[in-house]
């Protein structure tokens, strides 16, 4: 029988993991709900963001360097995401098969970004040095303070994004364009620009998530694949009915992952998650917190 301490430890690591997953998955979810396409380049955007940040921390070190790295990386990735829309998705925005075509072009786009990283930074693993060290005692187990900072910043970033979408004219216009493209055009909104802004925002959140992962573990050109799959699981599990549904799902996935890693072993944890996802798709394809219509 496991002790309450162990249980608390597993739960806490799950929650910490969930914060990261929420940040990664929200970017994927807002693109899906707004443009109606699945962005398979999301994982490589994470990786590219991490590499840009790493490059900045190489020139400016310390806490200031990290802060600068976050700002520059998010800005750069916003522009990359913005461009991505015009290159990969806009050319066939009126096409009936836009979903399939976007899967194909974003996969190809992911391949281009990944190989560009490989060409620019080489295949060697890198790490962004975390700006904060120190431990916190929690139910008898020691956690890195940095983990809690990440959780806090992730949630704050998501809160800021939610505020932007709900309470500013620009954010509301983005939601309008997401829900009914034709009606938004008839309201005089520049839908293409709003779509590009959405992908830009998603890429910026991806960059933030990439930096956090890169400072916890190592980064390599192909490291985006795993976060992409995790975000996919989260988004499907939670559905996209509300802005918050993938966030709840992220914590469920994080906790499920840390439990299965503890009890079944590291190798089986992803298999459990995928099985969970297929089960949800079978029983409730719109997600645990979803209803049929998609929205932002």
């Amino acid at each position, binding site marked *: 029988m496991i002790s309450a301490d162990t249980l608390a430890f597993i739960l806490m690591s799950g929650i910490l993991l969930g914060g990261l997953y929420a940040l990664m998955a929200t970017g994927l979810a807002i693109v899906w709900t707004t443009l109606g396409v699945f962005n398979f380049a999301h994982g490589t955007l994470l990786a590219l963001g991490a590499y840009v940040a790493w490059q900045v921390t190489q020139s400016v070190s310390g806490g200031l360097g990290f802060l600068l790295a976050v700002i520059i990386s998010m800005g750069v990735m916003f522009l990359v995401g913005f461009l991505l829309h015009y290159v990969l998705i806009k*050319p*066939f925005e009126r*096409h009936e098969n836009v979903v399939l075509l976007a899967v194909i072009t974003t996969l190809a786009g992911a391949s281009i970004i990944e190989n560009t990283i490989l060409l620019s930074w080489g295949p060697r693993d890198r790490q962004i040095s975390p700006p904060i060290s120190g431990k916190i005692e929690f139910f008898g187990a020691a956690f890195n303070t940095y983990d809690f900072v990440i959780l806090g910043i992730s949630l704050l970033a998501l809160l800021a994004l939610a505020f932007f979408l709900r309470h500013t004219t620009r954010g*509301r*216009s983005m939601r309008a364009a997401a*829900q*009914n493209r034709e009606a938004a055009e008839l*309201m*005089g909104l520049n839908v293409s620009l709003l779509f590009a802004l959405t992908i830009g925002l998603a890429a910026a959140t991806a960059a933030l998530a990439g930096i956090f992962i890169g400072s916890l573990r190592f980064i390599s050109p192909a490291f985006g694949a795993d976060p992409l799959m995790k975000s996919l699981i989260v988004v499907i599990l939670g559905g996209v009915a509300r802005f918050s549904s993938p966030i709840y799902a992220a914590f469920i996935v994080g906790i499920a992952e840390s439990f299965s890693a503890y009890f079944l072993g590291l190798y089986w944890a992803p298999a459990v998650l995928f099985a969970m996802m297929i089960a949800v798709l079978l029983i409730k394809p719109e997600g645990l917190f979803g209803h049929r219509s998609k929205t932002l």
Partner: protein
Amino acid sequence: MSAPLLQISNLAGGYPPVSVFHGIDFSIGDHESVGFFGPNGHGKSTLLKTIAGLIDPWDGDIVFDGVQLNAKGRMRARTSRNLNYDLFRRRRMVAQTAVRSGLIYVMQGNLLFPEMTVGEVLEIAPVAAAGRQGVGEMREQIDALFPRLRERWTSKIRYLSGGERQMVSIAVGLLALPRLLMLDEPTLGLSPKLRIELSVAIRKIRQTKVPLIIVDQNIEFLTSLVDRLLLFDHGSITREIAADAMPSHDEVMAMMFGEAS
């Protein structure tokens, strides 16, 4: 007489390669109101969507308030069936320009934005007014026209009834401060009570001298509102009837389909 507000000449369009309408000529003067009547599926909505800029016209001119809204000349035929022409060819007409110059189209059975509240939608609607004066007054007018919308201010659109949705649609159109308002079957699928309520509102809008284009299946409703009636059949305007010679439903049916056979 000065130049008409909206001048459509020799307009053709459709969903390539299917031509839906062709050779459309009509014009609308200031303060004038025009009705379209014709069978379903003959291209009335496609025509209005083209004028609003949602669909590229194939040929002809759309001149609104002296400004040519669409690219001049005929749309070039495709020489290759497989090339993605959308990529190379600029849009021949953009909804944004039409809307911002005050040519407003209220879509048929518009679902609007199902997950936004009435308040949110009506607050972003004046984007289309493009800085013209009078949004505040229009808000007051809308409150007077559709008092029900204030009651549903915080409801999401998808919880509204069909009539309420139509009211929001028209309110969104009005908040764009239209210089010409195109209503596409505003009373479609509504209960008789709501239909009357909405008709009253549209008559009030008519009294504010906003020029209107109305498409409807109810000939009596149309004739009570418009100065001219255009009969639309098989993708072209087949007849024009002035206000003083407004026919009854049966007469129009006889004109369009010949004697009952």
